[in-house]
């Protein structure tokens, strides 16, 4: 017969209530602990003004990206079925004017959020998987594995990323996937270095030594001890990486290395530039996508810094 633990009445904030008798199942204990850690984390994060502003901004853009197909019709995006006259400044019908095909810039900007955010997230996924993987592997195993991986990481760190991106993109060709790949290839090393350093310090901690003495396998040590403790660094770095990936996508697009068939904010700006918007002074086409990029990057950066402060109490306001 399995005993169900006695559930106490809801605790009123501030009063001392004896904790419920712990459930016997270790998995349940772990989930309870995780949930408690998350609520605690959220409580601290909530107090960080910068982090909250960033989060709100972010939520706004994500909603915009998800809702885009509902707001913008397919025809509005196709050059052939463009609704307006080309190069028109903002009017009531077209609040942000039109592009060289007569498409509404506002529609383009709303829809562009999808690709920009998609590339940002996808490139970050690649960067974090490779970077964290290499960092933890090198840091944890040490020895020759570490020397080799570290040399590889350092090499990628030294190479200036734009020339490398240019070289790769010109060889691989211009497509969305290649853009993501190129950003991933040029960004993973930064993460790897950071994660390796953190892994090295976590590895030395007493509880890891103890677990090893108890006979834990490498897999167990890495997944149950090292990874959870390196997670905060990885998480904060992930958020900042998304910001950098979005900026990188913009740079690549502006260099003419973006996918000509998709619509991202960076590609929008490139199209404008290519069509002579600079000399013609078509500010309504050039400014909005850039402002969006700026705001999204700011949002991610603010969240990233807030996370850094929350997870690293040393630099918090004393």
């Amino acid at each position, binding site marked *: 017969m399995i005993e169900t633990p006695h559930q106490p009445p809801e605790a009123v904030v501030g009063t001392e209530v004896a904790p419920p008798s712990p459930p016997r199942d270790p998995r349940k204990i772990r989930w309870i602990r995780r949930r408690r850690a998350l609520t605690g984390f959220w409580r601290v994060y909530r107090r960080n003004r910068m982090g909250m502003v960033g989060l709100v901004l972010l939520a706004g853009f994500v909603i915009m990206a998800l809702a885009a197909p509902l707001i913008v019709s397919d025809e509005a995006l196709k050059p052939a079925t463009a609704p307006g006259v080309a190069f028109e400044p903002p009017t009531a019908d077209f609040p942000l004017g039109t592009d060289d095909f007569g498409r509404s810039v506002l529609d383009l900007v709303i829809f562009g959020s999808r690709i920009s955010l998609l590339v940002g997230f996808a490139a970050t996924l690649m960067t974090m998987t490779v970077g964290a993987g290499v960092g933890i592997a090198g840091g944890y195993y040490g020895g020759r594995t570490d020397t080799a991986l570290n040399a590889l990481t350092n090499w990628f760190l030294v190479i200036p990323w734009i*020339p490398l991106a240019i*070289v790769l993109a010109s060889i691989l060709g211009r497509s969305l996937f290649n853009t993501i790949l190129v950003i991933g290839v040029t960004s993973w090393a930064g993460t790897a270095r950071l994660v390796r350093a953190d892994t090295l310090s976590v590895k030395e901690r007493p509880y890891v030594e103890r677990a090893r003495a108890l006979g834990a396998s490498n897999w167990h040590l890495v997944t149950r001890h090292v990874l959870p403790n390196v997670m905060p660094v990885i998480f904060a770095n992930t958020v900042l990486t998304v910001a950098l990936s979005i900026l990188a996508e913009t740079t690549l697009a502006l260099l003419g290395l973006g996918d000509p068939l998709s619509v991202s904010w960076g590609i929008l700006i490139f199209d404008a530039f290519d069509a002579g918007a600079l000399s013609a002074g078509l500010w309504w086409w050039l400014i909005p996508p850039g402002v969006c*990029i700026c705001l999204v990057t700011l949002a991610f950066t603010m969240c990233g810094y807030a996370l850094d402060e929350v997870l690293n109490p040393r*630099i918090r306001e004393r």
Partner: protein
Amino acid sequence: MRSRRYLLRKVLHATGTLLFVLAFNFVLFRAVGDPVKLLTRSSLHLDPQEQEALRQEFGIDDPLPQQFVNYLGDSLRGEFGYSFISGRPVIDSVTEKVWPTVLLVGTATILSTVLGIMIGIKGAWRRGSAFDTSSLLGSLTLYSMPEGWLGMILLITFAGALGWFPAGGIESSDRLTGLPHLFDLARHLVLPCLTLTLGYIGQFAIIMRSSLLEVMGEDFVLTARAKGVRDRDVRRRHAVPNALLPTFTLAFYSVGFILGGAVLIEQVFSYPGLGQLTYQAIDRNDYPVIQAVFLLSSTTVILFNLLADILYGYLDPRVREA
């Protein structure tokens, strides 16, 4: 004696990295395929005899290791082949365009570093003040802006709408000399340099600020104050030198990024430097040029990183031991 070993190690490391870069460059472009086919793909029409002659010249039929050695030799001698587009030796195009870029990138790096550090110091020392909050916000915003776009905005505003600065190029078409010429150069340099500077000043300010904040919490700062050292001397002699170390290395490492940023900025401002050369090479798949620029920029970055390591060893005595 310890320092000399440190120096040697760093130089060897840099040379090794450089070799890897060369190897990477070599492999990548051979991997793309037959260079001759690439040539013919890019609109140059060659008959079979010319193709064969080119083959001989490129040494394609030689064994791969031999090709690599040839490639190394060529690179060291500055033989980077001929541009697909102009047909001129790549090295000529490069040497023509290198100084404008050096001027642009050099000025931008110095300005963004020095100003960024000053702002960061002031912000950290007076944490929470109006200056601190506004400079932090400003730094974050600038950091979040795509540089190319920022350049475009500045161009439209200051050159287009307000007409304070020329819309591009490095100098005006009138043949000026002496002081008016310098002034003209400066006028043309302002907007592109400003763009690059603004792009990186935020980073330096933020890093310097957090570095100094961390140092300010250290015990030795308290010791200095307890000794009766004036506030500004505590900052100048104890806090800042320790906080400067990471920022300092960042400055050198940033040269690579600023160099990369110059590609876009030069195109936006029609500034005839290496950046513009690169941009146009990308546009037309001019591989020899792309390859050469990659090599050059990598070498520059490796060199600056080496300089950074050496100077860091000089500034931080703890590092020399390792």
